[in-house]
């Protein structure tokens, strides 16, 4: 599948491979990330006369084996580095393939910490579980939560985050009851009934994906447990959820790098916003934002390496390690393992069809509604 076109790079053209899921179970998030990658290339190319980014995109079909094949094919087509990847179980083998080929692989699509703790020298990630956990703990602390029920998917990333969150909350003396659920589950009423009649927790924290949140919120709307807040993680406090499920979202909390409607104060943010709206004719979302940041950092590193003549001498990885700059998701600086040391999420709340940032204090765009439940 072609992105902006495929072929062998010219002297001033930097060929970048995009490996993302555009079909399969991760198609929705993969497509969102791809939008950000495309916008990054557009913004970069308009701002740079010396170097031009050319993208070749391959759909990994949400499958690990296809992800490996995609990376290898992109390398054979002359890609100098890879951006993309979604789902830790897809990213890990794809990153290994990139590492074996000496290619930089940058992503925001996997939060499993084994990705950065397995000794890959050319792997970079701009977000991590710790950043999400920090935001959740911060909000729960502000709410003075005494008891929390955590409902989480047994998929790798949510399960990892839920277990870390559970341990951190217990260490703070919070009573925690965990409810892991199989990703194939469709009826959440038995779980919510347990929360209502057994746990009797003050707050429900959901760690899963969009379909899970909708199922849990619906079950909660039917059974009406006596809780003060329904809090989720990624993919929840988004314009898409506000637009698609207006009846379920009011007062629900979730991690959110952006308020909605999106507002950008920096020049970089405004450039992203304008290009995104021009290309996709819609409001930018967090997936596009992450895709944009990871790719822009890569493009800049490639341009610097090209200027130094080290493009094919591990120069891109070296330049990535030197990254230390403010981006749309905050300051990015990679540690020796390739993980962004500074990542910290914000918490948003659906209010009146908008998403208001309610944590941390310095980033708030409105007042928190607490207690706040969607019924």
């Amino acid at each position, binding site marked *: 599948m072609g992105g902006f076109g495929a072929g062998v790079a010219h002297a001033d053209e930097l060929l970048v491979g995009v490996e993302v899921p555009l*079909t*399969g*179970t991760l*198609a*929705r998030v993969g*497509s969102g990330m791809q939008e950000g990658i495309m916008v990054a290339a557009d913004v970069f190319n308009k701002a740079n006369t010396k170097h031009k980014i050319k993208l070749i995109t391959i759909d990994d079909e949400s499958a690990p084996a296809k992800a490996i094949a995609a990376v290898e094919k992109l390398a054979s087509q002359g890609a100098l580095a890879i951006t993309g990847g979604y789902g830790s179980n897809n990213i890990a083998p794809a990153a290994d393939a990139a590492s074996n080929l000496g290619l930089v692989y940058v992503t925001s699509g996997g939060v499993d910490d084994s990705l950065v703790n397995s000794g890959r020298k050319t792997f970079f990630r701009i977000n991590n579980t710790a950043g999400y956990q920090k935001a959740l703990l911060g909000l729960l602390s502000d709410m003075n939560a005494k008891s929390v029920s955590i409902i989480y998917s*047994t998929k790798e990333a949510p399960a990892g985050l839920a277990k870390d969150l559970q341990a951190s909350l217990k260490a703070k003396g919070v009573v925690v009851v965990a*409810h*892991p*659920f*199989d990703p*194939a*589950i*469709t*009826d959440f*009423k*038995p*779980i919510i*009934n*347990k929360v209502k*009649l*057994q746990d009797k927790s003050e707050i429900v924290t959901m760690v899963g994906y*969009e*379909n899970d949140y*909708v*199922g849990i919120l*619906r079950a909660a*709307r*039917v*059974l*009406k447990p006596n809780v003060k807040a329904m809090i989720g993680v990624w993919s929840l406090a988004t314009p*898409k959820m506000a637009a*698609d*499920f*207006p*009846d379920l979202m009011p007062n629900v909390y979730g991690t959110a790098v952006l308020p909605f409607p999106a507002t950008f104060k920096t020049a970089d943010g405004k450039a992203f916003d304008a290009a995104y709206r021009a290309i996709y004719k819609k409001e930018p979302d967090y997936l596009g934002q992450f895709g944009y940041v990871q790719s822009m950092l890569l493009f800049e590193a490639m341009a610097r390496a090209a200027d130094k003549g080290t493009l094919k001498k591990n120069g891109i990885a070296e330049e990535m390690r030197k990254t230390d700059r403010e981006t749309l998701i905050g300051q990015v600086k990679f540690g020796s393992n390739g993980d962004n040391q500074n990542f910290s999420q914000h918490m948003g709340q659906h209010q009146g069809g908008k998403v208001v940032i309610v944590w941390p204090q310095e980033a708030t765009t409105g007042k928190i509604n607490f207690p706040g439940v969607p019924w």
Partner: protein
Amino acid sequence: MTELILQALYSGLLQGGSYALIALGLALVFGSMNVINLAHGELVLLSAYIAYTVESKLGWNPVFSIPVALVVVCLASVIVYSVVGRIKKNREINSLILTYGIGVILTNAILLIWKADVRSTGSSWLQEAFVVGPFYSMRSEVLFFAVSIVMIVGLWWWLSRSWYGRAVRAVSSNRDAAKLMGIDPRYTELVSFVVAGILATFAGVALFSYGVISPEVGNTLTVKAFIITVLAGIGSIPGVLIAAVLLGIAEALTVTLASSALQELSSMALFLLVLFIMPNGLFGAKGRRG
């Protein structure tokens, strides 16, 4: 604890009803033609997406999408049959491979048309809580549980009382003998597929009304329908309801009494246990398919 278990039994019962509605079409085709239609879940999903389109574009209750969905899904079902009906040898195995491929094509067509976003009804009428004593459910769950019962009774009546229904059973029992009785096997099989399409239509609208849909769930639906069909015993239509309800209750009780992480495991354990004790399923007669 009693309140928890009662609610689990009620949720399981309703969930079982929805499973039965999804499984009926697959059970009919499997029982009457020896064809395992692995694209059945995608047909259900197609109907669900038509319900979504009608609701989002016209603002109508998804229930009103049924006439449109009937036409589209039955047409798709006929197309599936036009391909599957050409299989001459090893129908069970070859239909598996062929319909799997059709399912992949349908999934990608759905993805292309409706994108990968998760969808669910916005109708507050369908989502509203329906409370009877200590039992809580969504109004749509109760509505489609009733639809499921009506469909099962209707299908049973059709197979046992109507001429075409008897013809379907005759062809499934002995294709050559049915031919000698003046029954056109191909036409009869086509009728089976159309009826399966009708069942898939109702199942899809139901799914959209109380669940969450996205392009990849078709496969999960097929697997669930297949488990129920085998658990019920090939050819037993009332058995589908009982097997589906058993499965729904087993899942709900597992969540309530053990862990929600074990839900799928419990349904598979029930499936294997029943097949170990009763290889023909709960209601499958030995040699039913002659």
